[in-house]
């Protein structure tokens, strides 16, 4: 098992005919992911490297049985793309696109929560990988190996850093999910923790947070109340100054809220050990796995 994606995953790509979409989707396919369709209105009937293109997602889903959509379309078209994938009932939508206006996402989020039949990962996220099974998005598959650690993160390259350190130590991963760094993302830490808790393959979870918002604090409460699976955490941004937006639209410390310190304390209060840097996190994971036996 794994969470969200596995060997049964069939992916339809929104924006496959674009530069980013084709580059990463072909990499995903090389990894072994079933990329079954692309969608570009007006290019229906064509093929890209053997992958059939459709005019609409619903047509693609019906024809190919795709159960995951991944979107690389430009920010101004991406909200419509998410809604289209949800409307086609593909079940999981992964939106890699960054720079979607917050108001657009607020509306999309509200709409998706009403229907509840579609999970959205992202936007502004690297996607997710279940090592050895399926890779959807831009995470480099080479730095992962299959194993017992579930990883969930708001960040991209920082996640790679942690995955790399784990892999270097010989510790594999069940699924690594980049939930995205925007103020509004479809899937929260808690959504992933819930799934990891249910996944028999995941023996331990590493959570990588960052400044801004209160998702880490909520995750700490959730872990405390609901999780048997051990969790270790890492927070980026201890030295970030208040009021500055640190790259991610969501990464901003407002007043006394959203600081890395507060988040680390929340985790520690919930019995979650917090690493000070990526190397320390990897060490904590190693220790915790050893103690599980």
């Amino acid at each position, binding site marked *: 098992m794994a969470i969200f994606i596995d060997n049964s995953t069939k992916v339809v790509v929104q924006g496959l005919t674009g530069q980013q979409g084709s580059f990463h989707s072909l990499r995903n396919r090389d990894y072994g992911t079933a990329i079954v369709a692309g969608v570009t209105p007006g290019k229906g009937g064509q093929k890209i490297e053997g992958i059939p293109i459709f005019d609409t997602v619903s047509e693609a889903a019906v024809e190919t049985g795709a159960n995951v959509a991944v979107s690389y379309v430009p920010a101004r078209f991406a909200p419509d793309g998410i809604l289209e994938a949800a409307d086609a009932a593909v079940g999981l939508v992964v939106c890699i696109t960054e720079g979607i206006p917050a108001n657009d996402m607020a509306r999309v989020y509200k709409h998706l929560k009403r229907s509840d039949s579609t999970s959205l990962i992202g936007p502004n996220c690297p996607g997710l990988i279940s090592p050895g099974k399926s890779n959807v998005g831009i995470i*480099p598959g080479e730095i992962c190996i299959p194993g017992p650690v579930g990883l969930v*993160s708001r960040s991209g*390259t920082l996640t*790679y850093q942690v995955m790399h350190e784990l892999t270097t130590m010989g510790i594999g991963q069940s699924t690594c999910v980049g939930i995205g760094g925007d103020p509004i993302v479809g899937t929260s830490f808690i959504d992933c923790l819930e799934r990891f808790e249910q996944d028999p393959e995941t023996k331990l979870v590493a959570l990588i947070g960052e*400044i801004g918002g209160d998702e880490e604090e909520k995750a700490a409460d959730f872990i405390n109340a609901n999780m048997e699976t051990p969790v270790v955490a890492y927070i980026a941004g201890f030295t970030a100054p208040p009021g500055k937006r640190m790259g991610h639209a969501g990464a901003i410390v407002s*007043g006394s809220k959203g600081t890395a310190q507060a988040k680390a304390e929340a985790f520690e209060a919930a019995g979650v050990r917090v690493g000070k*840097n990526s190397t320390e996190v990897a060490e904590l994971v190693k220790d915790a796995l050893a103690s599980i036996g």
Partner: protein
Amino acid sequence: MDLFEYQGKELFARWAIPIPEGKLATTPDEAASAATTLGGKVVVKAQVQVGGRGKAGGIKLADGSDETRQAAESILGMDIKGHIVERVLIEKASDIEDEYYASILLDRAAKKYLLMVSSKGGMDIEEVAANEPDALAKIHIDPLLGLQSFQVNQLVFGSGIDAKARSGAAEIIRRMFALFIEADATLVEINPMILTGQGEVLALDSKVSLDDSALFRHPDFEELREVVATDPQERMAKERDLNFIKLDGDIGIIGNGAGLVMATLDVVDQAGGRAANFLDVGGGAGADDLSNALEVVLSDTKLGSVLVNIFGGITRCDLVAEGIVDAVGRLDVRVPIVVRLDGTNAEEGRRILSVASHPQIVPAETMSEAAGKAVEVKV
């Protein structure tokens, strides 16, 4: 993008939110002539994006052009918490009978808009929330449904503002919401919103932040942005499309990905150093991006060293190395550049750097080692 008070008020005027009559001035003479045009008593207000300008002497009352010129002279050029005052707003003085507060922002926890109105204006709203919760009305707005009239009622009645101010405040709330949505703002705050002796309700101050991601819908806002980016190094970064924030240390930081760069700042701190900046070259950066990034970071004359921390994914470490070699070739590099490369094509990248063997390039194996070296080799 955070706007200056006068820019926020330009938007208020466009969305018909009442404000005092005013004029912007960049010199004492302009200020004096503005006072003459406005007539009567005026307020001279420093235009800075930082709180506490009043206590710092950045707001002065003046009567007539001479007093206004003097006030402007004393305020222009003032340093308020590191912000140099380049502009003053000259406004007709208002006859303030009562002060209130109104704001709207995206509440990321609730994933809804949050509207707040308080009968206690001119104060820090977090303090009001903590100490006088009855004086604060908060409501969430459903993004699909939008602001409803009953919610406006809940705010004006629930906040306990004066009955005379209710209809004026209700109108301002409606227009604030329209501005928030139509201009793609992330924050609109009026503190204080005042009731005048004449029974009008006005926005005496403005705090507006716009969503950078939505600027494609608002080409006319580009000019606001030009004024906002006043720091020369920040402007240089913006021209090169780099995600840059000025900090106050002496170690220049370059990395790929916001999370990784934040983590790099932390590791430098743990190693006893202080970062001079945050610079994220973004995903899939090429040689030019790296070369540009180094140019921006090295333009800081107080720098002691630079740390380049790259984890290649889409980004290829060989291209990163080429960019570094290009930069050290064309720039006058007076500080050491510690470079750590990992991920896609990292070996090839390290080889390129080693072949170039530039005296200022210091290789490092891991993030921690790189941070340690960046502190160590500082000049």
